[in-house]
């Protein structure tokens, strides 16, 4: 299915938010961030703990108001939004709060009622959410007795109830097993065909496959706002190489190729081999070709591999100020 034309459904303009305590100095959780979220996009919202991700989501959800700047959800200020706008937002907060003493069906009925759904409309919405999140067998179970994964699916079902246009999901795959994670990712992909999804996660591996855009927040500032493909094109991964060549020789060859040798190389005791890390825009194909070239030059290659996922590396770069990004 083709996505609808991109149009902003969430807009943040120079938003600042500070928190004050009675005795301490005020602390800025957000220091003037601006971005828009477009219809039909899945946007990954990344950043280390304490970067301001939760505060941003709370501002979009209308739980907090900004000290400076403007937040717009579907064209209105979410803090003052009426129930008709709130019903168009699905929110799964961090830690997935649920009423433990309620049965799953009661919790879903309450969520439907809170979104203003009544009678047949509520039943249809609940049935759809139950089907999407595979909760059919647990409807009569008390939430307090459910596994963490099932609780997570209940939280997600509450968020998608009523087919909201905007979904704010905070760690939706937290506590799920690999199969459930795969199912949830497929569900998010399906939902994103007609919704705007802001997905906050510490799992970086699925981001390139799942998300169209990436926002990276660090210390209350937006350090990256762009497409996933543009981010990945900046990827600097590290290749690990074990060879019998001296560091000077390796450095000379790398200089010719425009690559940087990590200074943390080490000599493998008793073998005459060295272990190197080489920074560059590596992929398997390029690495294999380069290794072949060195082998042709008579180097003995003890082994090689690419280190870590490119997203992990980019995340570290962006959030430790190693590289400044657009």
């Amino acid at each position, binding site marked *: 299915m083709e996505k609808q034309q991109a149009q902003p459904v969430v807009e943040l303009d120079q938003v600042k938010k500070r928190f004050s305590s009675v005795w301490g100095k005020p602390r800025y959780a957000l220091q003037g961030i601006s971005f828009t979220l477009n219809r039909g996009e899945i946007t990954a919202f990344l950043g280390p703990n304490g970067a301001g991700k939760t505060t941003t989501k*709370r501002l979009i959800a*209308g*739980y907090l108001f900004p000290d400076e700047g403007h937040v717009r959800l579907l064209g209105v200020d979410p*803090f003052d939004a009426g129930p008709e706008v709130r019903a168009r937002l699905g929110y799964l907060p961090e830690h997935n709060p649920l*009423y433990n003493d309620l049965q799953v069906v*009661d919790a879903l009925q309450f969520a439907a009622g*809170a979104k203003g759904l009544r009678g047949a409309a509520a039943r249809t919405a609940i049935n759809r959410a139950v089907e999407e999140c595979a909760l059919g067998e647990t409807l009569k179970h008390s939430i307090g007795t459910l596994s963490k994964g099932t609780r997570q699916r209940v939280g997600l079902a509450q968020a998608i109830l009523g087919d909201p246009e905007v979904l704010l999901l905070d760690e939706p795959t937290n506590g799920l097993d690999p199969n459930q994670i795969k199912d949830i990712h497929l569900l998010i992909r399906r939902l994103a065909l007609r919704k705007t999804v802001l997905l906050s996660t510490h799992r970086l591996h699925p981001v390139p496959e799942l998300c169209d855009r990436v926002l990276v927040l660090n210390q209350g500032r937006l350090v990256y706002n762009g497409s996933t493909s543009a981010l990945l094109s900046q990827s600097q991964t590290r290749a690990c190489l074990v060879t019998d060549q001296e560091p000077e020789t390796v450095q000379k060859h790398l200089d010719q190729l425009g690559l940087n040798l990590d200074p943390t190389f080490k000599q493998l005791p008793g073998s005459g081999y060295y272990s190197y890390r080489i920074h560059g825009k590596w992929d398997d194909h390029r690495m294999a070709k380069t290794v072949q070239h060195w082998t042709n030059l008579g180097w003995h290659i003890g082994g090689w591999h690419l280190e870590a996922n490119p997203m992990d590396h980019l995340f570290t770069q962006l959030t430790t100020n190693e590289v400044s990004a657009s």
Partner: protein
Amino acid sequence: MNAAPAIARKEIRHGLNSLFLYLLAVVFAAAPAFPLFWNPAPTNIFLSNHTSLAGFFQYLPLFLMVFVPALAMRAYAEEHQSGNFELLLTRVDDWSIVLGKFAGNLAILSAGLAATWVLPILVAQLGDLDWGPVASGYLGALLMGAGCLAICLCLGVFCPNQTTAFVVSLCLLAVTMVLPLPELNMQTRFQNLAAGLVDTRDLCFFIAVTGFFVILNRIAVGLRR
């Protein structure tokens, strides 16, 4: 305010799932029998040889003073502790939360009061019971209960846990029961109704207290954002 019925239903559902509330309801229904049947005269109907619920209504404010904070303490404290308050505030408007919680807990309180109807039925078997003061007494109990509930819910918004909510609410209700100003003393107002004197000033007093604290509750919820 269209989400208020859903919140009220949820509050009732929580009440139905709570063993503590069942125990509380049993105590609330049984305790008022004590002054009627075992207390020394004049409230003891056997010793006073007079079929009346005066003894029951005399002590009812004290029971309400404990029962209502115990009922209301969980309304907001649990939401805070579980993190659901954030979700609630993003889903529904503040009036829905306030009115929904008030209506749900008032329904539970009414059920608790209804459970004490076994007493007038029992007393009526023993003699000729005057049903006028009984009806006005129950009307007063409901109105005073609603006022107490509005006060406790309002205080509960600021309390981080159930124990604090209970203690703070109990203290404030105690103050309202012993105020030296009869115009503002809830117990004095209630005793007029319990004696069968249905004065519109007493009715208006309880309605005004309830309305005032419900509005204050709405402001308090807004401040929690």
